[in-house]
């Protein structure tokens, strides 16, 4: 057991290599009423082709399987997990993203019982053809709901315009067609591959001690032989598919999403690169930038405008999104501003302003148990530690960001996705 701390933040947590093969993190917050636990696997919507280290063949699974599995894991032969949590009062949930699936609960009492439920149901899959069938109606409605949401559709259209092959472009929940092909056997295959303890992480933050956590883990987790997973992504061309993608939905103000494809030698971005790019994006068009004011004053954007460095395994995109009556003009102005920055650079003052803003945001993140626990799982999957972001923000320089700028935001790799109002 190792204690990792940060003196400036006056915060720290325990990192435990549990004998079962699972990585466990415990972040005590002794004054808190709440405790939040998250049990996650590095398995998300982009993992559609893979094989276990001890098997010969690659398996290809339908789009949306990771998310489908997440829904079904709540079930068991007897009481489902929600009914078990109903006896304790915890608020429980789960989510699937591009690269992970996480099961969580938040509680202010009965931690021990809740934690036992979490470890137990995640480690005891129960899938039958009948229950798989029944879930298709529920997830089908979830898919339809997302297909009506302009922001969601706009993002995925941008991703489809950008990536020829990378599965980040597929909807996390899949399609009604793809999920109709899912069988109980497939769910077991995926489970056996990805829900091996060596591919998972567990984090608990809040009113809890490492001893409480370890005692329960010792009792409930059985040692598992390590399984490694090989993922097979199709080769992704360096080019984009379409520089402009448009769709029509029932909405009032058009929605847009502008991204710049980045091609890198390695599939994952470091925390330093991620922060550097986020600072750059904020300097270009964040709320304290001149461009933001210009766009706002000229009626081209509204409060929904935001910037993000969107990245994960095999994809990395500096991105601008929001609502606008003239998305093409917004894209043009952003592009011009980037060129100017590339030519002339930015001032130290501009840099310090956004750095201070991110610093404050990072400090604030250490007060929320859900942010902390999820952050622990994510940073573990990224082979990082939770305080890296904070440390990087103290050390990062304007020169480093300028170097990053010169090698990204390539004009011929930009994709603009627009969702326009459907005429009635």
């Amino acid at each position, binding site marked *: 057991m190792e204690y990792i701390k940060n003196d400036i*933040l006056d915060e720290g947590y325990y990192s435990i290599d549990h004998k079962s093969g699972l990585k466990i993190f415990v972040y005590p*917050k002794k*004054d*808190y*009423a*709440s405790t939040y636990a998250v049990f996650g696997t590095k398995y998300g919507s982009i993992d559609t082709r893979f094989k276990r280290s001890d098997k010969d063949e690659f398996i290809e699974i339908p789009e949306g399987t990771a998310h489908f599995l997440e829904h079904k894991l709540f079930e068991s032969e007897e009481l489902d997990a*929600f009914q078990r949590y*109903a*006896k*304790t*009062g*915890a*608020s429980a949930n789960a989510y699937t993203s591009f690269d992970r699936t996480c099961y969580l609960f*938040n*509680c*202010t*009492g009965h931690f021990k019982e809740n934690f036992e439920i979490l470890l137990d149901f995640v480690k005891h899959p129960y899938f039958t053809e009948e229950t798989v069938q029944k879930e298709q*109606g*529920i*997830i*089908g*409605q*979830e898919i*339809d*709901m997302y*297909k*009506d*949401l302009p922001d969601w559709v706009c993002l995925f259209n941008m991703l489809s315009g950008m990536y020829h092959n990378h599965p980040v472009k597929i909807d996390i929940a899949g399609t*009604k*067609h793809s999920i109709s092909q899912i069988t109980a056997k497939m769910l077991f295959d995926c489970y056996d591959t990805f829900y091996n303890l060596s591919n998972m992480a567990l984090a608990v933050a809040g009113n809890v001690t490492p001893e409480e956590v370890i005692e329960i883990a010792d009792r409930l987790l059985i040692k598992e032989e390590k399984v490694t997973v090989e993922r097979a992504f199709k080769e992704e061309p360096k080019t984009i598919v379409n520089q402009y993608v448009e769709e029509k*939905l*029932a*909405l*009032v*103000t058009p929605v847009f999403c502008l991204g710049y494809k980045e091609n890198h030698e390695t599939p994952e971005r470091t925390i330093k690169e991620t922060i550097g790019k986020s600072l750059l994006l904020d300097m270009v068009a964040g*709320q*304290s*930038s*001149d461009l*933001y*004011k210009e766009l*706002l*004053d000229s*009626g081209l954007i*509204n*409060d*929904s405008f935001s910037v993000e460095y969107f990245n994960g395994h095999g994809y990395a995109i500096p991105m601008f999104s929001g*609502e606008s009556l003239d998305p093409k003009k917004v894209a043009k102005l952003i592009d011009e501003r980037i060129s100017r920055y590339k030519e002339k650079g930015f001032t130290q003052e501009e840099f310090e*302003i956004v750095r*201070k*803003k991110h*610093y*404050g*945001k990072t*400090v*604030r993140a*250490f*007060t929320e*148990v859900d942010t902390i626990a999820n952050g622990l799982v994510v940073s573990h999957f990224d082979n990082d530690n939770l305080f890296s972001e904070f440390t990087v923000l103290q050390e990062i320089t304007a020169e480093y960001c300028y170097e990053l700028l010169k090698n990204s935001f390539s004009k011929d790799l930009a994709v603009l996705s627009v969702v326009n109002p*459907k005429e009635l």
Partner: protein
Amino acid sequence: MKYTFDFKNIGEATEFCTVKAEGFKTACASVSFMIPLSDEASVFALIPNILTRSSEKYPTVTLLEKKLATLYGAEILADVSKIGENQVLKLAIASIDDRFALDNESIVTECCRVLFELIFKPKFVNGTFDADEVESEKRLLAEQLGAEMSDKRAYAKNRLEEIMCEEELYGINRLGTVEGINSVTTEGLTEAYKRVLKTAKILVSVSANGSIETENIKTLFMEYATGCERKPEKQETLYVENAEDVTYVKETAPVKQGKLVMGFRMGMKDRNDDYAAKRIMSDVFGGNPNSKLFKVVREEMSLCYYCSSRMIRAKGIMLVQSGIESFNEEKAKNAILDQLEEIKKGNFTEEDLEASKKSLEDAFKGVSDSPEALDSWFTTQLEHSEYLYPEDYINMFKKVTKEDVIRAANDVTLDTVFMLEGTEEGDEE
């Protein structure tokens, strides 16, 4: 987390409350203005936005954002909500605690100063707000209303409230209407701002670490507020106990998923009328994953991804919302009403009742862990200056029996059904 709550009257219908905890590493301050909800909602709804855009001292959005960035990314929030038939305009600021300042600055007090500056020292040009900024904020608010129309779940809920409470003030959208926003003039907005300072009930709230001198912040507020002539106006919310008959409205939209919203009257004479029993009843009905609506309509019948009920105490109504295949409308409606009947007949277990009490207790206890959650907990009680603690509610809920829940369910009548029918094919199978 252990905290202390303190509350003082500092002027006519003006209150100042503080929440302090040793464990807080962040802070949050807010000023809420409560005014009667009226057909002038649009002009009032613009006020939080125009005030947080600039001020005399920070005349452009860029200069204000730069100031906030130097305060370590302090965030300003402008919000408009409805508490019963009152409109609440809220301006808030969230920041990190002083101990993280890189140069020993007093971040929290400075944030409060910025907040008060925005409220009391707006950028006036010849005695009114800046006309260009007013036009810009009108566009932004109209687009915010537009976004709520684009989001069909929000749209369907807003339409239900509008239709159900057509004859009541509650039917007015908290942001007013697009037409209302478009007709606002610079002079009109300036006049409305002055009227808010004069007539609103005001609550200032500071939630921060125990080491922060909130007494200084109170003095600071009073200095800024000096000279405001006060003549507060109050509006009592009308409670309609029962629905006479069911209103049904259907609209269509080119979307894939249909949205069903059902509005019920809860049989309440006022906000305290059998409140605890009604709150628990709404939860057993559709408030959590163990509820009737989740277990039956979603899990057993596979009709939807979401189906839940929510009680709006400040108006004595309950809304059920669900996203469904449009052709399943009758099936879903009947299933929802059947589940209510089940509760009326007492067909639920003691365990279901306990599950609701426990989940509410668990959630309410967690409020104490963040300054933002506590700020919102106390400030949403400004309508009656009651300021009860989460524990007070937990104790109230503990006393609720199965009979209480059955009685509460029998007081419920269906008032309005709104269906937004999707005319697009769902995703192909």
